[in-house]
């Protein structure tokens, strides 16, 4: 039976990787796969987004299915499905295989995950959605997107570049076909680069390293999704039952990756057991079953009243404090949200920082925010035009967002959606300084009637020469703030044209927009 579980873990993980690799433009304006399905079936994400967003989000129906199955079969998700769990199990079976863990951690450490869950639940109830800090699926996809995949991509590219530049035909005739095969199937089309890659990657590394202390340290002690599924599955039908043939050898208790087995080896902590079936497989007497006539013995749930109340109170107190952050009063002008993003408060209620939109962004323009949207907006997607612009005809970010924080737009709607507006920096722009013509921004401006307009003007240069020059202006009615002008501006350092969120479609009162410059 344990073999079945392993097959399930591997199969699900392969699906997960397949969907991750296909979260990318591949000659198709509509993604053919539901690449975000792992997030959409995550009841923690669903619960938080629904509570905080005060809305029924149709996209999240798979989470209901998981809840239903969990009610019947218990916390099987963690053992059989969760890709994070699979990675941790894999690490145990490889990196930490020979490790003898000596220090025994206090058993009540595992309460922490419930406290985290309660904190998240209460804060979400008060519209502060902090699930992004702890949700394992979001953490995993975000880490892969921002750190692991770009890092891997860079390493492989460097290797093949090094081989290529040896200029030795005997080498390149083999390396180049392999490289182009990898490029076609696994590598990024262009090297993705993200701000905060190191920070996000380090957190992932910490979770992996914690296996040093305990098997499934993350799942046992910290994961609020595990806590939620444990509570939901507490009364499921499949339960660990121990028959009379048990000789109390204690093998199962010592080996349990979740510490779910009591000291009598017969009782089980139902919320902790992830039904990995290891105890069933290793029992020398075949005494352990998960279905059958034997009566299951349950360990009582003991969270400690004090801890529960404290975590609930912290959630209730944190919400108003975080929500009163100054960033929410006056937002950073560089806070340019993806096309179709909900209004800022609603957006943050739903965005789980999974990084799907950043992963799929064709021009690598969507980047994780640091503090542009305040602490509660950490890692939320913002367009950083100097790094990458928003492709005019692309609607992919709205297609992958699991919670509808970014609406799915039709191409027509997308082309009409203003992310913000471009503004010239006349002290830097080449023709505005009177140096020469340039027009690069105008050339790239994607609106069918160009939002950047050129006017022939006669100017006197610093040396007194009178010349004719084409000076660019932004027509703010036409500009959609896609940022390609800023991206392609040939100036190094600060660009001569800059996009800000001013005039964005999603802002309230955007229709009353007044222009404040010529």
């Amino acid at each position: 039976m344990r073999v079945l579980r392993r097959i399930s873990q591997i199969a699900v993980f392969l699906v997960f990787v397949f969907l991750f690799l296909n979260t990318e433009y591949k000659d198709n304006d509509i993604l053919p796969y539901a690449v975000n399905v792992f997030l959409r079936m995550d009841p923690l994400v669903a619960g938080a987004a629904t509570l905080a967003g005060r809305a029924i989000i149709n996209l999240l129906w798979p989470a209901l299915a998981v809840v239903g199955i969990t009610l019947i079969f218990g916390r099987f998700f963690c053992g059989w499905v969760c890709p994070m769990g699979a990675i941790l199990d894999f690490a145990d079976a490889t990196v930490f295989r020979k490790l003898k863990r000596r220090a025994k951690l206090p058993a009540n450490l595992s309460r922490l995950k419930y406290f985290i869950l309660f904190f998240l639940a209460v804060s979400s109830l008060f519209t502060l959605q902090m699930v992004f800090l702890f949700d394992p699926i979001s953490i995993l996809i975000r880490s892969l997107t921002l750190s692991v995949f770009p890092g891997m991509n860079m390493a492989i590219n460097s290797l093949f570049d090094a081989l290529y530049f040896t200029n030795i035909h005997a080498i390149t005739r083999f390396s180049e076909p392999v490289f182009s095969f990898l490029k076609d199937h696994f590598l990024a089309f262009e090297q993705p680069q993200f701000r905060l890659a190191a920070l996000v990657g380090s957190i992932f590394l910490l979770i992996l390293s914690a296996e040093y202390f305990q098997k499934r340290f993350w799942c046992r002690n910290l994961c609020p999704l595990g806590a939620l599924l444990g509570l939901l599955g507490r009364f499921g039908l499949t339960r660990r039952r121990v028959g009379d043939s048990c000789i109390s050898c204690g093998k199962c208790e010592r080996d349990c990756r979740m510490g779910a087995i009591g000291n009598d080896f017969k009782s089980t902590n139902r919320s902790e057991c992830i039904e990995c079936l290891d105890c069933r497989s290793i029992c020398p007497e075949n005494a352990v079953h998960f279905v059958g006539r034997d009566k299951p013995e349950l360990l009582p749930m003991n969270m400690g009243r004090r801890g529960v109340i404290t975590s609930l109170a912290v959630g209730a107190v944190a919400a108003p404090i975080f929500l009163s952050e100054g960033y929410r009063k006056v937002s950073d002008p560089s806070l340019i949200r993806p096309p179709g993003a909900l209004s800022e408060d609603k957006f943050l209620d739903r965005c789980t920082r999974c990084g799907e939109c950043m992963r799929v962004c064709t021009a690598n323009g969507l980047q994780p925010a640091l503090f542009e949207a305040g602490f509660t907006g950490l890692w939320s997607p913002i367009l950083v035009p100097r790094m990458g612009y928003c492709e005019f005809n692309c609607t992919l970010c709205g297609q992958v967002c699991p919670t509808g924080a970014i609406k799915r737009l039709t191409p027509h709607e997308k082309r009409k959606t203003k992310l913000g507006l471009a503004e010239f920096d006349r002290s830097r722009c080449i023709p505005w300084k009177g140096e020469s013509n340039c027009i690069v921004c105008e050339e790239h401006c994607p609106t069918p009637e160009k939002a950047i307009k050129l006017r022939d003007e006669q100017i006197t240069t610093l040396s007194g020469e009178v010349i004719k020059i084409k000076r660019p202006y932004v027509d703010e009615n036409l500009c959609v703030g896609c940022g390609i002008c800023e991206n392609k501006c040939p100036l190094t350092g600060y660009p001569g044209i800059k996009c800000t969120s001013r005039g964005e479609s999603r802002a309230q009162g955007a229709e009353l927009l007044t222009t404040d410059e010529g």
Partner: protein
Amino acid sequence: MNRRSFIKASAIAGAGAVIGPSFIGEALALDGPLVSMAKGTPPARITGAAVEALGGMGAFVKKGDVVVVKPNIGWDRNPAQAADTNPDVVTEVIRMCLDAGARKVKVFDRTCNDARRCYENSGIGPAVENIKDPRVELSFVDERRYRMVDIPDGKLIRRWPVYEDVLNADKFINVPVAKHHSAALLTMGMKNVLGVIGSNRAVLHREINDALPDLNRVIKSHLTIIDATRILVANGPQGGRLQDVRQTKTVIASADIVAADTVAATLFGKTPKEVHYLQIAQDAGLGVADINKIRLKKISV
């Protein structure tokens, strides 16, 4: 003579000498460059007719040649929007090269929008892949393959990285689409070579009228086939509005890139004098920008 030795030779010989194609045209009275201008439909047919009028592709592509066919695939636009070369024109040019015995036909462009989107939505990617001939190689540009090239007589630029495949090819066939462009006024053959150079090409737009002749000194188009099946007359080079597109149903071809561009300019109602880089190119000896000195052969299909 391959491209590399050609560039070397022309660098040694200095500016001026334009190596003409081996084609010997019909014995017309004038001795100016021959430009063919085929009008009609469908696009593939007038493309064939335009090249036929120059003596056929065999006059340019020899058996065993490695040929680069360089369309404009710069923008994420569809064929009707006239921002990229008509896919039917591109595939017809490739077919003619294959028929003439080309060993390899390479097709690529350094795009402005995301390359995958441009290749796909321009229609050029699917059309070229559809030829299904192992000699045809459609690829995205590979950043590792630019090589610095000296431009000894460059007025504005003295050296610039150029795509290796172009330098190594036996023949370079330039297949632009004719469009409005706010800096260059019009973008046609000479401007299309910006798609085979590396580095920060945006800076070249500051002095585009000098940059284009400089680049065309070292990137020689053996044959220029201008797609004017439909042309973009405003909001170029990217377009997007069908009201800015004119159905001119024309393909222009010539071994003289300057002459080809000069003839194409007339479709926009522009005199070659208004397109400054054509004049500068003529002065540099790159070709003929005087409409009266061009042997224009009009074909109607």
